[in-house]
């Protein structure tokens, strides 16, 4: 095992874990419910570790990405439904990420948000065009490590560590009204969706094919998922905890992505603010790239086109035109002026509805003797996989009613 590769892979996973949805929902969860939703982050992170490891293993052993296998297992009709649903979900998510970067750039430069959205679009297209896959992923993942400032800010804020530790225990706060209870459930479902976004599985598994993983890379896959996602989740939990420690006592409701960065400014001043803005910018920009490429991977794999950024763009022409078109579509959504927070809410809602369709074929494939041979799911992977599938189905069933009852978490 190449230690440098492993370290870079883990650090990339850490820096790339938090996106606009996790940022927003972590901050709001902390300000509204204190430390009571930390356990949902922890639970969801274990879920994405399990499913991420499976998708990487399928890519390394079956040498086929998830959407090729979805097509083969579900067939054309149901496969098309899954493709269209995930395209819509990922497109909205991509628009939310681009909108998020535009907000951060506006805060950094003062320039108009829409202009920043167009500028960001040009940078993202340029990044994917110029850089090969490994450096696209690493550039934004490693620069996203500026997010560590949130963990540092939390330490400096001297929070009640015992209460943070207590937050890891599954709980429902006592004394909530029925309306607040429903809103608490909505946040639980939203966090599950934000942490287990389907685009992460498509991107991670296709990335494994891009990097030509084989069975010898299975330990790297496992360590990246467990350590990388685990540490990344701690960053998200830092954001939640800082919000609980700093915003909740002041009854501040951090509705905007820009509000969350104040968690770094309050204890650390302007340096903290700047580092937090940069961290969020790179993490969210990286997520914009991942969502767009995940969609392009899905389309290309579903229809059997040449795909991948380990090849030159002119050798994968339909794939190239697809990711450019998807970026432009996402930008068009942002330029309609729709509130970025609404996009975040819709992204989370659509994604949780798509999750069961995404994960079921993956679960079945990962335990398929014909494709996976001796690397198929063992008892633990199967058990956890099906447990999380049940959690995802429950979240998908509850999502729309909870969204409507709480007006998208507003109460």
């Amino acid at each position, binding site marked *: 095992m190449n230690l440098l590769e492993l370290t870079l892979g883990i650090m990339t996973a850490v820096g790339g874990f938090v996106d606009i949805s996790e940022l927003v929902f972590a901050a709001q969860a902390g300000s509204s419910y204190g430390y009571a939703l930390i356990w949902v982050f922890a639970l969801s992170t274990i879920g994405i570790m399990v499913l991420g490891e499976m998708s990487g293993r399928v890519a390394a052993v079956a040498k086929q990405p998830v959407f090729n296998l979805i097509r083969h*297992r*579900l*067939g054309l009709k*149901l496969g098309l439904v899954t493709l269209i649903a995930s395209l819509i979900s990922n497109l909205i998510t991509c628009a939310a990420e681009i909108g998020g970067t535009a907000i951060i750039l506006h805060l950094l430069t003062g320039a108009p948000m829409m202009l920043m959205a167009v500028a960001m679009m040009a940078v993202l297209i340029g990044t994917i065009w110029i850089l090969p896959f490994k450096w696209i992923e690493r550039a934004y993942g490693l620069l996203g490590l500026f997010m560590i400032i949130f963990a540092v800010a939390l330490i400096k804020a001297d929070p009640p560590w015992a209460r943070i530790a207590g937050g890891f225990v599954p709980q429902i706060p006592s004394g909530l009204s029925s309306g607040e209870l429903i809103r608490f459930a909505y946040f639980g479902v939203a966090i599950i969706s934000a942490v287990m976004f389907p685009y992460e599985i498509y991107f991670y598994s296709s990335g494994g094919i891009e990097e030509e993983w084989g069975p010898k890379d299975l330990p790297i896959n496992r360590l990246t998922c467990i350590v990388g996602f685990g540490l990344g989740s701690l960053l998200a939990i830092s954001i939640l905890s800082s919000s609980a420690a700093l915003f909740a006592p002041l009854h501040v409701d951090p509705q905007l992505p820009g509000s969350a960065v104040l968690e770094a400014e309050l204890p650390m001043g302007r340096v903290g603010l700047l580092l937090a803005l940069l961290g969020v910018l790179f993490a969210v920009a990286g997520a914009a790239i991942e969502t767009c490429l995940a969609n392009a991977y899905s389309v290309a794999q579903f229809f059997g086109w040449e795909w991948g950024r380990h090849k030159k763009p002119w050798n994968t022409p339909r794939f190239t035109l697809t990711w450019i078109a998807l970026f432009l579509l996402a930008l068009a959504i942002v330029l309609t002026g729709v509130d970025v927070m609404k996009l975040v809410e819709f992204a989370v809602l659509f994604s949780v509805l798509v999750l069961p369709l995404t994960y*079921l*074929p993956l679960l*079945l494939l990962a335990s*398929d003797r*014909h494709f996976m041979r001796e690397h198929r799911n063992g008892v633990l992977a199967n058990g956890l996989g099906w447990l999380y599938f049940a959690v995802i189905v429950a979240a998908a069933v509850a999502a729309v009613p909870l969204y409507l009852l709480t007006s998208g978490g507003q109460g």
Partner: protein
Amino acid sequence: MRLSALIGLPVRDAAGRTLGRLHEIRAVDGRISELVYGPAGLFERLTGRAQPTTLPWSRVKRIHAKTIELNQSLDP
């Protein structure tokens, strides 16, 4: 004739009884050798498990537009 035109067609025996729907065809060296039918469809495909009801293709008398007719009577 296309494969898609056959999959999902009801399989009827010589007595006219519907035995199930065709959801798999097996071939050897490109030559159709067996049909697999039954009530299962999507579940079978999702789980990849072998469907127990199999007949040699030689038992097929005729392929109609909407059914597959066998050349003998069978218990459903």
